Structures are given as structure tokens and as C-alpha cells.
């Protein structure tokens, strides 16, 4: 999972903070944002850069990105060849970032830029990851309920006290993003993965901007994908290291149940002389045996996969070394 953070070389003359903004179709005026960042960050940190990742967001965005890069010297831009999604945009932005501290901003400004210093302060006190927690929320009705439910479910599944997984405004040491692979929609769960890898993290409550509501994240169609995200999360956090422990247990119990059913049928046929062919129990027994063996063998396959790649997967994170 990434190269060993300890061996990573510091880039000379690098800015301290890299601000990464993945640009989707919805965002505020970029030049204004970049100027505001300049005003905010220059007195606060030892050099910064802004990286705009244009995820094929359209002609208007393109014009704004060009204006921003020409007018603000700290701003750079990456353009993706086609729409690749926020996680990829984020990963590419992080790859080209040079700072030791990465700040992910949401260009729609759910959270006012003026709250940024609040996120940076805990990093100076030894935190590795600081997440914004929009409180109070401005959404209403179903959307708010769904968002809260999602967070509560994630909390319950992982036992990690997260409150706002849907807010992408986060500040972190770059080691965190180097170490944790984000793909698909998994960047949402960054605090959970970080906590499980032993990084120190916290949430900072910040007010949500009035009139800025989350759209689309929780319409009814996306419920299914959020639900499958949670399943992925459960799987990646709980069972990924020992697939055979998980699948083996389910498979073996299914197999044993099927075996017990069929043995009892054989007993009644052979010893008691009763006809059993018409009984649905026979079909159930056969089904359970097949399913049991299938699940267990898939678990074995997963175990083999982990086993052969185990030398590449680092099971641990080094905090500091005395050499």
C-alpha cells in the first residue's frame, strides 16, 4: 500500500501546502476562489500551491481554469481526457502535488474558505487528517435524513465515530493519501481507512454555507450505490485480510447443514425404508452442499490472492523510527 513513508524524499523548494480541487460540473467562480486562497493562506503557511483538476467539466470551467492559472501564479491545472470521477481526479491531483500538507477543497464551497485555518491548526498539533464536519446542516427533509442515516450506518459498521463522510473538505499530511488507495467512490471513507491504519484524525465542526445544498448525493437512485459502498467498506475493513476465515465459516456451515439433511434422508430411506425422493428436503440438502463448497472455494481463492500478494501489502504503518 504505497511506498514506505519514512523513505520518502522531501522535494526542495516545495510549498508547504497543496490545495487540490477536483472540478465537477458544479463549482463557484475559480478566479475568485484562487484569489481568496491567496489572501487566506499567504500569511498562514510557508508557501502554497493550488491544483485544479478539470474532470471534463465543460467549456465554462475550462475558460475559468485558464483565467485562474494565468492570473494566480500559485495555481496549476490538470485536465483529464474524459470524465473519470472524483476519486481519480483526486488521486491525480495528489500525485502532482508537491506540498507536505494536502488540502482537498470542494469548489462548490459548502464550507466557507474562511474556515480553512480551523482545519490546518490541528495538523500543527500532530494530527494526520482533519475532516470538516458540516454542522449545522442546511439540507432539509429526506436528503438530510439519508445523509445522517448513511453516516450512522458507517459508524455502526466500523465503530469509528465519523459524522460527515459526505463532506470532502479535508486537510491531511500527504503520507495519508500516499498510503491509502482511493478509487471508485471510496474517497468518501478516507477517515475510516485512515483511522484503521492508525493515523491520528479528528473532525472539526464548521458551519455549512447557507443556500448551498447537496444535490444528487442522496437522490433515491443513488441509495443502491451508497448501500453497495457500505458493503465494500465492511468487506475491506473487516474481511480483506482473512477471506478464508469469513467465507470458510459460511461455506462450512452451509455444507454441514446440507450434509446433515441428506444423511438424515439416507437414514430414513435405508433404515426406515421410507420413500424420500418426493421430499423437498432432498433438494434443499443438495443446494446447501453445493453453495457451501462454492463459497468455501471462493474464500480459498481470495486467500491465495492475498497470500501471493502479501509481500507487497504492508500490514502496518510506521509512525517514527530512530536510526
Amino acid at each position: 500500500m504505497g511506498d514506505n513513508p519514512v523513505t520518502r524524499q522531501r522535494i526542495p523548494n516545495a510549498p508547504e501546502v497543496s490545495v487540490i480541487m477536483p472540478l465537477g460540473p458544479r463549482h463557484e467562480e475559480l478566479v475568485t476562489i484562487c484569489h481568496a486562497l491567496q489572501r487566506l493562506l499567504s500569511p498562514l503557511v510557508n508557501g502554497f500551491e493550488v491544483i485544479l483538476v478539470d474532470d471534463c467539466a465543460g467549456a465554462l470551467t475550462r475558460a475559468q481554469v485558464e483565467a485562474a492559472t494565468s492570473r494566480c501564479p500559485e495555481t496549476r491545472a490538470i485536465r483529464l481526457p474524459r470524465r473519470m470521477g472524483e476519486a481519480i481526479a483526486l488521486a491525480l491531483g495528489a500525485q502532482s502535488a508537491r506540498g507536505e500538507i494536502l488540502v482537498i477543497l470542494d469548489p462548490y464551497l459548502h464550507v466557507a474558505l474562511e474556515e480553512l485555518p480551523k482545519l490546518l491548526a490541528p495538523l500543527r498539533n500532530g494530527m494526520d487528517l482533519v475532516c470538516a464536519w458540516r454542522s449545522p446542516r442546511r439540507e432539509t427533509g429526506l436528503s438530510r435524513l439519508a445523509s445522517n442515516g448513511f453516516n450512522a450506518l458507517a459508524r455502526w459498521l466500523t465503530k469509528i465515530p465519523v459524522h460527515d463522510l459526505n463532506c470532502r473538505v479535508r486537510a491531511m499530511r500527504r503520507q495519508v493519501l500516499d498510503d491509502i488507495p482511493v478509487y471508485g467512490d471510496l474517497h468518501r471513507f478516507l477517515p475510516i481507512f485512515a483511522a484503521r491504519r492508525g493515523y491520528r484524525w479528528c473532525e472539526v465542526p464548521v458551519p455549512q454555507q447557507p443556500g448551498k445544498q447537496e444535490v444528487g448525493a442522496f437522490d433515491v437512485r443513488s441509495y443502491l450505490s451508497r448501500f453497495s459502498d457500505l458493503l465494500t467498506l465492511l468487506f475491506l475493513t473487516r474481511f480483506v485480510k482473512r477471506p478464508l476465515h469469513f467465507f470458510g465459516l459460511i461455506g462450512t456451515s452451509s455444507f454441514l447443514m446440507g450434509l446433515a439433511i441428506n444423511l438424515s434422508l439416507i437414514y430414513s430411506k435405508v433404515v426406515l425404508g421410507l420413500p424420500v425422493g418426493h421430499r423437498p428436503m432432498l433438494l434443499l440438502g443438495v443446494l446447501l452442499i453445493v453453495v457451501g463448497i462454492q463459497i468455501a472455494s471462493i474464500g480459498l481463492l481470495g486467500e491465495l490472492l492475498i497470500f501471493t500478494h502479501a509481500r507487497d501489502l504492508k500490514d502496518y504503518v510506521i509512525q517514527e523510527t530512530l536510526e
Partner: protein
Amino acid sequence: MNTSQSRCSIVIPLLNEQESVVPLHAQLADAADRLGMVWELIFVDDGSRDGTWQQLVALRAQDRRVRAIRLTRNFGQTAAMSCGIHAASGEIIVTMDGDLQNDPADIPRLLDKIQEGYDVVCGWRHRRQDKLWSRKIPSLVANRLIAWLTGVKLHDYGCSLKAYRAEAIQRVPLYAELHRFIPALATLTGALIAEITVTHHPRRFGRTKYNLWRTWRVLLDMVTVSLLVKFASKPLRFFVTLAVCSLTVALVCVERSWEWYVGPYHRIPQILPSIAVLGVWLAGHLVIVGFLAELCLRTAHNRSERLVAPLTL
């Protein structure tokens, strides 16, 4: 053999052992100085919540041969050991527990065995100083089971005091809680294994980190490792054997059905087709899984050095 050029790394995972650090270092330095080798001591602090790390920092200030690594949280003994093993610079790596129950005075004897040409030398806590019912009996059963399942005949898999040739141990995949099975996994890479008896002291400080609940997890690990050891080099053969068995059962059932059909009653007992369906289904499934397993190993082999290959010495 000329030992003056070779380097020895001693790797010790620590979890809440603040009282043990200083006496352990004293004993180890004493034993290691008599080796006649250049040595280093690697302490891996596996997320201790007491003053272990502060003790290590102080120790490091006194003795430059001590290296210390601190993990971000408690990742478990296998991860800590793996971390230390991969950080080690010596050609010979010795691992041991940080609870003073192993005796550093045994290290020279382990190294003698390594010089004889073995790749992995395991300690056997011959007169073990632990509670009988909660530790010794489960351990005895577990050891017999592991020896039987993996085919590697050792008396004491749980003893952390071991010596390795670095090239042998660094290619063993170590993850989850597999440190108990290092000898079995090492045989996969063609390592030669020896066992010698070592001294075992009763615990002086701190608390034991084992409990009976672990036995269940160890049992599951045992099955996993024995399967891996048995079929990691030839998965397709393993699965095809199972598939052929299941297909045979299916064919027998089909044949019996035919006999019933041409017989005087002209009807087939329902159980025969059911078993035939089960058998064919399973055979197909098993062959596919075998292919996937083979594919998975093949890509791993192409990617890096072969996993299952004799060591080049």
C-alpha cells in the same frame, strides 16, 4: 566459517513492556557481544500505550546499535515482526519476544545451526514456564495439529526465538497472524529447517497477551496454512482431483439411474438424479476455481521472483 564480516539483526516486537526494555537490552548486549559479529537491535513498538517508546528513546541515546521503530497503532505481532524483519540490515536475523521469557544466551547456539547451513532455526521451549491448562495444554494440541497438517515436524511452533538467514525469511509472505507458521511457509520457498531446545523463563513483568479465544483463530489459520502449503504450487491439480472425484460420483449415479430405468419398474428413484446434478455442478465449479487459482499464482510469479522456488544459496 568466517563470522567476522557477517551482520546479525535482532528483531524484538514490543507491546506494553516498559519494565522489560532495559533489562532485555542489558542481557541482549551481553549475549550479542560474545557473538563476534557486528550486530544491531531492532525494537518494534507495536502501538504500546505505556512508556515503552520513551524507554526506547532513552536507550537509543545510550547505545547507537539500537534501532527503534514505532507503529501508528497496534497491528499485531506478525505485522510488527514483519516490519522489523524488513527493516533489518543483517544477513542473519534473530527474532524473539520482548517479555524476557526467552533467554538471549541461546542466540549463539541458534547461529551455530545457521552456520551449519540451515535457513530457519526454531527454538523449542523444552521446559516451558507457563500455566498448564490455559497455555501449555492448548499449545501442545496446537503444535501436534500444525505438525500433522503442514507436514513440517517441529515441537514448538509458538516460540518466537528463531534465527533466519535474511534472504530466506524476507521472501516469506507474512501477514495477518501467520508468524506461528513461519516454518511451514518457509518450506514453500525451499528453506531448510532445524530445531534446538532453548531455555524458557517465567514471566517477570507485564501481562500475557494470549488467551483461549485466540485458539479458535489459530485453528482457522492452521487450516488456511495447511491448504496453502498443500496446493500453493499446484492449485489446478488440487481442484481437478476434487472435480474428478465429484464427477465420478455423478457418473455412478447416472449409471444406476439407467439400470433402474431399464429395470422392471421403469422409474428412477429421485435421489440419484439429484446427486448426479450435484456432482456435475461441483465438478464444473471446481475446475473453474482451479483455473482462477492457477492464473492468480501465474501472475504473481511473473510479477516478481517466484514464490515457490528453491533458494539460491
